[in-house]
């Protein structure tokens, strides 16, 4: 359908529209007009994404004189795929109605691991080895060598992409990752570098949060985005965590050991250059050099050239070829010093000495018996006094390392992650004085007998990482299904939204049924409170609840637990007591594990089991990867059971430090923040069941603590409004009764458009009437 919002003609790819989508678009348009930032909460299952996409693309179509780029950030790759699929529907619709002038280029950008089509490279186990494998074939010095020596292998896809030069462009269209790969394969061009190149020209770019928030990645990829862009953070309820994680580093024993190995390798490389220089001939000294079989005419002059460059203050020697780029500086661009590298680390050997001293100092600190917490300023001071490294030197660690590795032409970057971590740590600790703390824990709180020391530099201030984004781009839209309480986010992220609104959901029928279950079938309270969680009675009651539900609810059921360890424990107990076996008689059981491959396959099987009618239960963890972005809509999830309240581990030192910071800086009470955080996770878990108004699902909050007002009231309003008073304090048998009634009711046919007084679905005509009405109002 096509309709008018003030001066913008909005193209919406469906025949009907929800009224809340319409008002969402109006708010969004206001934000774009004001060139400001906004915060919008809209329930899941009301088509946020398509509303966003169609308004923003239509807005830029209506203003062809000032083209606007849309940067759409998702949390995960699979959400990226979903967004691109929706965009494709929209794009086809716009082309149908507007013709070729509506053509846009929209691409999804991901890492080499997901985009590479070179079979030898992509076969590698993990992301870092794929990145390194790519560098081995495409780095500028490797390619230069290949021109002289035909034995050196390069990547044919990259070579033909380079050969095509400016002709290598993507025709307009919407490209999912899979289609990018297919396109690359067909043309013989490297899809990754093609995508990287096309990002500058694309009208819509969809990528992960980190590509904008994490300075390490943003520094390479998002450097050249123009100011006239709209940035959208979808599903942004966790954005504060992403921000603080982007600036946090931890160092363990293994890291330090690895770093020591890396350092000796680097010094060998340096020696080789020197040796090479003195003898003037080449010896196949190192395995990898033999394999590569390279003959080099370079010598220590390279190192000298680097030294000279550093004196001039050019850390990275101007423009690097796109393939040589490594991860960029971990500190935010504004905080990086624009000056020459200090003299004491300009020479490679000197820099190595500094790093050695640093590693030694850190390993000394790890040997502590007690938990130590320090501010970065204090930490830097003690580094200075004990290891003799001053703050400025620390700050430059990362850039100096990067430069050195480029100079030494190291391609297997995946081997050097440890020293990189150390340098990240050094740079961050040297750069930031406020909003961070360093914490040394000699052992895990829960396993005090196993020494596992860890030094963490943790960021507490989410506003640091996101500040450059707010400053740089014209409009930033933060949206999610759960942003309650909505006034907290501007404080956490330190920005001033021009629009901040929470939408409710108009439902044709009560298609969600939240319940609070406080007692088991034996009327004893259930909870995952620390003192109750391992009580066999509670475990049994939870099992009974699930068992009763699997026999009543059709298709898919999802069950969220508070943590992996709790889930493992409870499943083992159920297995021993035979409850699991009984559950399996009704439905297949799938479990999220820490192994992503296995979890992905389990999810895939779960969906197939729901598709074929066998029905299945999926056990998942509230803060796990599945809860973060997998939808359990329609028959994939007719019921979600949230077992327990997913509080963070409250004894964690990092959490305590962050709470302290929040209290001192933003006057947010610890308890409030913890409850807020737990409830947004719970709401996020249960919110995954519903996708549209035609969908339906039940949500059971199984913990007695949910019945308390202070906890419950933190739930988003669209859930709260459907939580009837009668459903606040249920036992298993009552919940079962309600579930039966609800499912029976939902199975009846109904009128989709809603009753006459309360429209929940608007058609083209109704929209036009509405438009006239608002025009009418405006004229007065």
């Amino acid at each position, binding site marked *: 359908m096509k309709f008018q919002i003030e001066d913008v003609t909005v193209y919406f790819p469906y025949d009907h529209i929800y009224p809340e989508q319409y008002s969402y678009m109006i708010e969004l348009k206001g934000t774009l007009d004001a060139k400001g930032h906004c915060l919008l909460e809209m329930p899941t299952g009301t088509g946020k994404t398509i509303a966003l996409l169609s308004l923003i693309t239509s807005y830029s179509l209506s203003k062809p004189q000032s083209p606007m780029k849309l940067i759409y950030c998702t949390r995960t790759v699979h959400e990226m795929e979903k967004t691109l699929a929706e965009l494709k529907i929209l794009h086809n619709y716009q082309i149908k109605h507007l013709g070729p002038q509506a053509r846009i280029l929209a691409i999804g950008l991901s890492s080499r691991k997901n985009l590479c089509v070179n079979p030898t490279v992509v076969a590698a186990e993990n992301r870092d080895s794929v990145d390194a494998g790519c560098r081995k074939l495409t780095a500028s010095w490797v390619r230069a060598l290949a021109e002289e020596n035909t034995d050196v292998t390069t990547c044919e896809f990259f070579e033909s992409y380079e050969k095509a030069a400016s002709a290598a462009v993507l025709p307009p269209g919407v490209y999912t990752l899979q289609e990018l790969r297919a396109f690359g394969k067909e043309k013989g061009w490297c899809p990754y570098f093609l995508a990287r190149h096309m990002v500058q020209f694309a009208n819509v770019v969809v990528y992960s949060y980190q590509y904008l928030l994490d300075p390490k990645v943003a520094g390479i990829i998002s450097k050249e985005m123009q100011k006239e862009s709209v940035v959208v953070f979808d599903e942004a309820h966790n954005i504060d965590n992403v921000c603080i994680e982007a600036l946090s580093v931890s160092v363990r024993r293994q890291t330090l050991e690895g770093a020591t190995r890396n350092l000796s390798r680097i010094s060998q490389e340096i020696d080789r250059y020197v040796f090479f220089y003195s003898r003037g001939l080449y010896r196949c000294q190192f395995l990898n050099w033999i394999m590569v079989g390279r003959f080099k005419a370079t010598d220590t002059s390279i190192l000298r050239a680097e030294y000279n460059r550093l004196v001039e203050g050019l850390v990275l020697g101007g423009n690097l070829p796109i393939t040589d780029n490594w991860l960029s500086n971990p500190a935010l661009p504004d905080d990086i010093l624009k000056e020459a590298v200090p003299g004491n680390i300009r020479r490679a050997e000197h820099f190595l000495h500094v790093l050695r001293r640093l590693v030694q100092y850190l390993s000394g600190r790890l040997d502590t018996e007690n938990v130590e917490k320090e501010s970065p300023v204090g930490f830097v001071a003690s580094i200075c006094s004990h290891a003799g490294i001053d703050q400025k030197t620390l700050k430059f660690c990362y850039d100096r390392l990067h430069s050195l590795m480029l100079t030494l032409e190291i391609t297997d970057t995946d081997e050097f992650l440890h020293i990189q971590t150390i340098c990240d740590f050094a740079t961050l600790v040297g750069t930031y004085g406020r909003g961070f703390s360093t914490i040394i824990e000699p052992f895990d709180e829960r396993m005090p007998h196993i020494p596992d020391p860890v030094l963490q530099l943790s960021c507490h201030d989410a506003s640091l990482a996101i500040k450059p984004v707010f400053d740089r781009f014209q409009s930033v839209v933060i949206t999610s299904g759960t942003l309650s309480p909505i006034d907290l986010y501007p404080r956490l992220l330190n920005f001033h939204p021009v629009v901040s609104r929470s939408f409710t959901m108009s439902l044709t029928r009560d298609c969600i049924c939240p319940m609070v279950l406080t007692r088991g079938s034996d009327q004893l309270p259930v909870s995952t409170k620390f003192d109750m969680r391992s009580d066999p009675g509670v475990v049994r009651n939870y099992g009974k609840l699930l068992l009763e539900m699997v026999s009543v609810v059709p298709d898919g059921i999802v069950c969220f637990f508070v943590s992996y360890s709790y889930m493992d424990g409870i499943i083992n107990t159920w297995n021993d007591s035979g409850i699991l076996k009984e559950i399996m008689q009704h439905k297949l059981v799938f*479990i999220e594990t820490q192994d992503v491959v296995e979890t992905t396959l389990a999810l895939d099987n779960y969906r197939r089991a729901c598709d074929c009618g066998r029905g299945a239960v999926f056990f998942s963890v509230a803060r796990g990867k599945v809860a973060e972005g997998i939808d359990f809509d329609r028959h994939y999830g007719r019921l979600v059971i949230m077992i327990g309240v997913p509080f963070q581990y409250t004894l964690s030192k990092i959490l305590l430090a962050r709470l302290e910071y929040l209290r001192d800086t933003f006057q947010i009470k610890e308890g409030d923040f913890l409850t807020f955080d737990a409830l947004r996770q719970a709401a996020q878990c249960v919110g995954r069941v519903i996708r549209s108004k035609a969908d339906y699902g039940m949500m059971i909050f199984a913990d007695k603590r949910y019945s308390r007002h202070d906890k419950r009231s933190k739930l988003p309003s669209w859930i709260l409004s459907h939580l009837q008073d009668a459903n606040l304090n249920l036992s298993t048998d009552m919940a079962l009764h309600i579930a039966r009634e609800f499912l029976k009711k939902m199975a009846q046919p109904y009128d989709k458009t809603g009753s006459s007084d309360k429209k929940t679905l608007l058609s083209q005509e109704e929209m036009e009437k509405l438009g006239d009405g608002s025009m009418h109002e405006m004229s007065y």
Partner: protein
Amino acid sequence: MASTHVTKRAKYKTTIKDPGTPGTLRMTFEKILFVPHNPKSAGKLDVEFRYIKGKKHTKEGSNKPPWLNLTNNQNGSFIFEFENYSDLQECRDFVGKVLAKGGEVSEKPTVAYPDEQLSAAEMELRIKLLQEDSELQKLHKQFVLSGVLTETEFWATRKKLLDREASKKTKQRLGFKSAMISDIKPSTDGRTNKVTFNLTPEVILQIFAEKPAVHRAFLSYVPNKMSERTFWTKYFRAEYLHSTKNSIAAAAEAAEDEELAVFLKQDDILASEARKKIRRVDPTLDMEADEGDDYTHLPDHGILREGSKEMTESQNELYKRSLSQDINRHAAVVLEGRAVDVELEDTKAVAEALAQSKQKSSNKGESDGDTSRERLDRLSRMTEIEDLQGPNTLPLAPLCIKDPRDYFDSQQANALRSSGDALGEIEQIKCGLSTQEVYGSLRESISSIKAMGLKEPIVKPEVAHQVFDALTNSISNTKYHIGKNPQESVLDRLPRKTKEELLHHWTSILELLKHFWASYPITTTYLYVKVNRLKDAMSNIYPQLEEIKGSVPSELRHQVSLLVRPMHQALDAAIQHYEASMQKRSAQSGERPNGYV
């Protein structure tokens, strides 16, 4: 028809409690003859088969003796107890054959018809169908037994019924049990510490399917390297070690015994399969891709997540296996279903069959390249918001109507509601087209088919639906417009007996007409004879219909006659056609002096 008679030793009982008279049972196509061993006892029996209506028998495996119970049409029954089940089976099959053949055996039709050899299975299927559907049975009795139609003719029009029944039987296959294999609990003898595991081929198949490494080990070790018994002993030893959750002990044992290590190690086949499968996974839930894109969680970056610690430690990880892995694997195997369809007797055979089927499926998996296409389609379907979009034309499963009457009854409400406009539409469609337009559109569609090949589906679903609607409308209307009220049709107001009779006549007329019209044009003598037979049968119905009309109360007579009228019309038309064709025929034969019948 391998044998024309069966003779068995059996006991004859008049009631179930009766101990029975021992003797010899002899069955031929015509009759059942029972002669007691003791000529003085009273149990002598001589029954003709046409009085026998049904048969029951006890099941093998139930604790009852092998009994065959034959019921006659006066609701009496003859019970025979056999010495063993094979005798019973033989007799049962024989009775089944005779009962089914019933009419045609007793009165062999004079005209030769294409004889068909029926297998016992087909026979049984027919009997089953007759037993399930009383109406069919009635028709069968009325026409086949009375000789109007032959058995073959009767079933020829119901081929579909037979096919479907037959295919249904083979389609359903048993899946795996929902219980996990770790639930196999050993039994102890109570005195020693020895435990005994009972393994059935069923369980073994499940173990092989869930643990490809065990399967591979079995194929390579048994019986060359070790006996099957030692193999399974080792397997359960390994399972025991797992259940103790002591990975250090497991590692120690594995170091000593390399065969045991096979069971204790992580399943490498599974791992490689997983890597293969992950590439075909739905991109909207591919979390592995997500990890590949996550630069914040470089090793040691970001904030430690709960649980991430456990991943890094434990050097005995090789020998660790979690319950969740087992559960996931089990569910996946159950979902996949059983690929092997062999008689489960020999473990070796099971193992080899499974290996073969795996080979096949892996070949298939490599060959089909259109899975990615399918995935994309699926993805785009999933992303659409269903209720914002107009009704979607989804691929429909073909409708299977067992009893058309039920269907039309249920359609009535819809039909009445939309009858007005639907009829109007039909009118429009009819008058809107001229011959040229029709020709044009036909040409167009032919050329489009030539250009693009046949589309799937050939007819547009909307068009098909419209036509279908219109058709059912008119059909259900004719039936219901007689009684104006859709809920209570005129039939419901008639006395039960009359109603049943009417319906029965209607179905039998339909049956006759079906055969009648199917016989035209008459090309062979066989058809000629058949048509004559059918015509006679049809003319017999007229007086019966009149009789019904006469028997109903006067206030209903009009309605009945309304109901009967279409039947009359149908019959009239048939008979008219018959007479006309007879005249033509006689005229033709008159021309031909030699005469031709």
